[in-house]
Each structure stands twice: as structure tokens, then as C-alpha cells.
């Protein structure tokens, strides 16, 4: 590789954001959920369906483009893309949307995810013994090496990395618990959150049953959720004429390393470090020319609490093995050095497969978050192997 190419800085902006309610039983299809969140996002942007010429989602999203187009009433789609890597790819929708806009492939792109992780045909965290039917394009081919041994769930895949991390750095379950207590404190004041008005103590965390010993108690897990989130992205010039202050995509990137998998990421030499996230941090900060000191708020993919700590380290906000001390010092709180997952995260708010973290970043930069960081101008979003920096500047 010669030089480090990055996305054209700030060429595209998020101009609309919308969502459905987050629940445990939506009572309607993913297609309908997507229609509702997209319509809300377009209303928010002051746009109509006819303005949209690009759509982006995840490979694992069940909503078909053709059905979405004929329901929402898009007239002509000139660009579509789907991002692999499951939730790890969630922020990749911003990279693809921004690249499409910057290149001229599309002018207005809608990014969406619709999910019934709780009430759908198969609960997201349930034990499955065959690779999912979406196998070939969702990155689950590797899971054939897990299933015959009883390693059947996202928690079990990630736990093998988490236990090595604990071993290497002397991290204990209570260290994860302190992060969860903070997330639940944020969720307790967020009416959209599963954990609204229901904070927890560290003792309650420690007493919750083991999902995977010695790293994942029940309260370390995100909440399987039904709902949808949608975002509208367009060029920053056009964005200036729209109702809301544009939230610029300062940079967005993907880092996929040799032998890296998704949740079942077991073949890199040192599993105590999320080195895909180390590469992502280099892409977002050093390569794109942003400073960690400029970050006012962080949104970090927390399907399970151990990966929150490991990403804080991988992104370079603290040293390897030091996230436990960083968190114990109160860094993740509103008055801390790095307010993080201020909506409660996927653990406290709900699991729209990561896209609700992008929604929260937009709210923070617009100044409309329920747990608002004062004068927030720059946010980082990490889904471990895809990420972005959003900024008002």
C-alpha cells in the first residue's frame, strides 16, 4: 500500500434521522418498520421519497430493496449497497453513503436497518446449530467451525476473546460491570430506552446469572430489540439549505485484517487486543487527520460489555489493559473525559444492530440528546471494524 487514502473529508452530511419505537414485540414486519423509520428520516430532512436515489443497508437485513422501493415510493434508485460483517459493519453504511455522494454515484442516500431481534422467527441470541440461511453473504461461513462444539451464540463467540483479554490484563467481571452501571445510568433517563427508569448497581450486575463464565453476566448483554433506524445522507453543499444543522461525515472507514472474522474472530495471533479496531483507530485519527482530543462524545458498539473496553483501548483512548481504570475514573460519564454511549448503548437503550448509536451521535451534535454533552461538536462512532467521525466543523 502506498499512502493512506481516506474518504473526502466532510463531503457528505447526515441531514435526516428517524426511527420507530424500540420494543420487544413490534407487531409488524421489518419492511413496515423500515418504511416508518425512512419516512420519519425524510420528514426530518425536509425531503420527499422522490428526492432519494441511493439506498444502503446490511447484508443481514431482511428487507428487500424492491419491496422497500415500491412501499416508500422511491422513483429511481441509482445506487444501492449492502455492508457485510454483521453489526461490526454497521457504521459502514455511512462510509458507503458518503462515498456514493462524494463520487457522484448518488445525490441523496438513505441508510437503514430494520430488525426483529426479539420477536422475529429466531431470537438473535438464541442457540443455533447450523449457519444461518444468509451464510454466504453475512460472513457466517466461519461459524461451521464453532457449531459442532456447542459454540452457538454471539456471546459464546466473543467470550473466547474476552477471557483471553481478562487473562492478559488482569481484568475482572466487575470491571465490565462498572461500564454497564454507567450505561444503565444513561438509559435510565432515556425514555426510548429499554432500561428507562431502571438503573442498576454493581452488586446487581455481579449477582445476575452467568451467560458465559467468567466474562459475561446477563447484565453484560445487549437487549434483543425490535425496531428500525434510518438516516438521510447528501452532499454538504445541498445540506446547508435543509432544515437541520448538517452533521458532517468527517471521515468513515472500514478495517478488515487478514484472518479476521466477525463475532467468531479467533485466528488473529493475539486475541487480547482487537487489532481490527487498532487499524480502524489509525484510519479515523492519524490517516484522516483527526485528534482524539477533539472527540466530545463516543458511541461504541456494545453488544457485550467486554468489547466496549477492548474498543476503547483499540481506538487509542487509553492504553491496552487500561480501560478498566479509565472507566473506574468516571471517564464515560457526562462530566468525564469521554462521555460514551450516552443513550445507554446497545446494552441500555436497545439493539438496532448498531445503527441506533449513529442516531445518538446525530442527536448529540444537534444538541437534542436526552443526556446532552455540552457543546458537543465532534463524535466518534465505532463498531469495531467500521467507524466514523461526525463533526459540525
Amino acid at each position: 500500500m502506498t499512502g493512506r487514502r481516506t474518504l473526502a473529508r466532510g463531503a457528505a452530511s447526515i441531514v435526516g434521522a428517524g426511527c420507530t419505537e424500540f420494543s420487544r414485540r413490534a407487531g409488524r414486519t421489518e419492511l413496515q418498520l423500515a418504511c416508518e423509520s425512512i419516512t420519519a428520516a425524510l420528514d426530518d430532512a425536509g425531503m420527499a421519497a422522490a428526492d432519494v436515489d441511493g439506498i444502503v443497508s446490511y447484508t443481514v437485513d431482511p428487507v428487500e430493496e424492491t419491496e422497500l422501493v415500491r412501499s416508500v415510493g422511491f422513483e429511481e434508485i441509482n445506487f444501492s449497497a449492502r455492508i457485510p460483517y454483521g453489526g461490526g459493519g454497521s457504521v459502514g453504511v455511512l462510509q458507503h453513503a458518503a462515498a456514493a455522494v462524494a463520487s457522484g454515484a448518488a445525490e441523496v442516500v438513505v441508510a437503514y436497518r430494520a430488525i426483529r431481534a426479539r420477536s422475529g422467527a429466531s431470537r438473535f441470541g438464541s442457540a443455533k446449530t447450523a449457519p444461518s440461511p444468509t451464510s454466504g453473504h453475512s460472513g457466517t461461513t466461519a461459524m461451521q467451525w464453532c457449531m459442532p462444539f456447542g459454540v452457538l451464540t454471539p456471546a459464546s463467540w466473543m467470550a473466547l476473546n474476552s477471557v483471553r483479554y481478562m487473562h492478559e490484563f488482569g481484568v475482572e467481571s466487575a470491571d465490565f460491570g462498572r461500564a454497564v452501571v454507567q450505561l444503565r445510568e444513561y438509559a435510565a433517563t432515556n425514555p426510548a430506552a429499554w432500561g428507562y427508569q431502571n438503573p442498576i448497581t454493581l452488586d446487581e450486575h455481579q449477582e445476575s446469572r452467568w451467560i458465559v463464565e467468567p466474562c459475561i453476566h446477563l447484565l453484560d448483554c445487549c437487549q434483543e430489540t425490535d425496531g428500525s433506524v434510518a438516516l438521510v445522507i447528501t452532499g454538504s453543499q445541498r445540506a446547508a439549505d435543509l432544515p437541520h444543522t448538517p452533521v458532517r461525515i468527517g471521515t468513515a472507514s472500514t478495517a478488515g485484517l487478514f484472518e479476521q472474522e466477525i463475532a467468531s474472530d479467533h485466528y488473529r495471533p493475539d486475541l487480547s487486543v482487537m487489532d481490527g479496531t487498532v487499524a480502524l483507530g489509525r484510519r479515523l485519527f492519524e490517516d484522516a487527520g483527526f485528534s482524539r482530543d477533539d472527540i466530545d462524545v463516543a458511541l461504541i458498539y456494545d453488544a457485550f460489555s467486554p468489547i466496549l473496553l477492548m474498543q476503547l483501548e483499540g481506538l487509542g483512548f487509553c492504553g491496552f489493559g487500561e480501560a478498566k481504570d479509565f472507566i473506574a475514573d468516571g471517564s464515560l460519564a457526562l462530566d468525564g473525559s469521554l462521555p460514551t454511549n450516552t443513550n445507554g448503548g446497545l446494552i441500555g437503550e436497545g439493539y438496532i444492530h448498531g445503527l441506533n448509536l449513529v442516531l445518538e451521535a446525530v442527536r448529540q451534535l444537534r444538541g437534542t440528546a436526552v443526556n446532552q454533552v455540552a457543546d458537543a461538536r465532534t463524535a466518534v462512532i465505532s463498531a469495531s471494524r467500521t467507524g466514523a467521525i461526525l463533526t459540525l466543523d
Partner: protein
Amino acid sequence: MAADAPIRPSPTVTDDSAVFWDAAAECRLVAQRCAGCGRLRHPPRPMCPACSSLEVEIAELSGQGTLYSYAILHHPQHPAFEYPVIAALVDLEEGVRLLSCLTDVSKDDVRIGMPVHAHFVPTADGPLIPVFRPSEDL
């Protein structure tokens, strides 16, 4: 084993993965070895990532390794397995890593770095697969 005892599902065998599972069915633990550069690799794949050779040999592995990491799985429970399942990442002495599980050990005695060795257990449709137990128990 009682007729209604849990029995793990058979592996999903593809053209790319058959080299591993077919050997396991004969109580052999193998990895691919590149015929071009000699590099061992697991999981199996059609091309050597180091030299692009498509030629492979089969390397017989000793089954001896050390426990790189583990996870004691309590929930959710699938009827095909006995719980807790002790999931394991084993670094084999030849230099490849294998995901498997541990048998014949109490969960409280599992330690990262412990020597383990492979043995073979049946699956629902008959084929054997490699699992590991502590070497001290030999």
C-alpha cells in the same frame, strides 16, 4: 450413553472444509500444508495466502496443544449439548489454532496455558469430531 442423552450435531461439510472433517471421521487430526511454501493453515481454504499456490498436502497433527482461551457456556442451552459447555481455543504444537471444547475436566480446573490433547467423539449422524482433555489425565 443413554439413547436420549444429548448428542452434538454433525458438522456442516463443504468442499472447502471436507479435508478436515473427513480426516476427523477417521480419528485423524489434520491441517492443510501448502505444497508451494510449506505453510500450515486452518481453517482450510483453497489458496495459500502466502504464495498463492493451489497445491496442498495433508499434514497429520499430533493433537497436543495448549489452551489459549476458554469460555464456560451456561446459557442459552441447546438440547444437543451437555452444560456447561467448556469452549476452547487450542494452540496446537505444530502452530495452528483450533476451536473446540474440553471434556473430562471440571470447569473450576480450567486454566489458560494448560496442556491438552485431542480425542474424538461421535456426532448425531455418526462422524467423529476432535475435542480436547487435559494432558495430565492421561
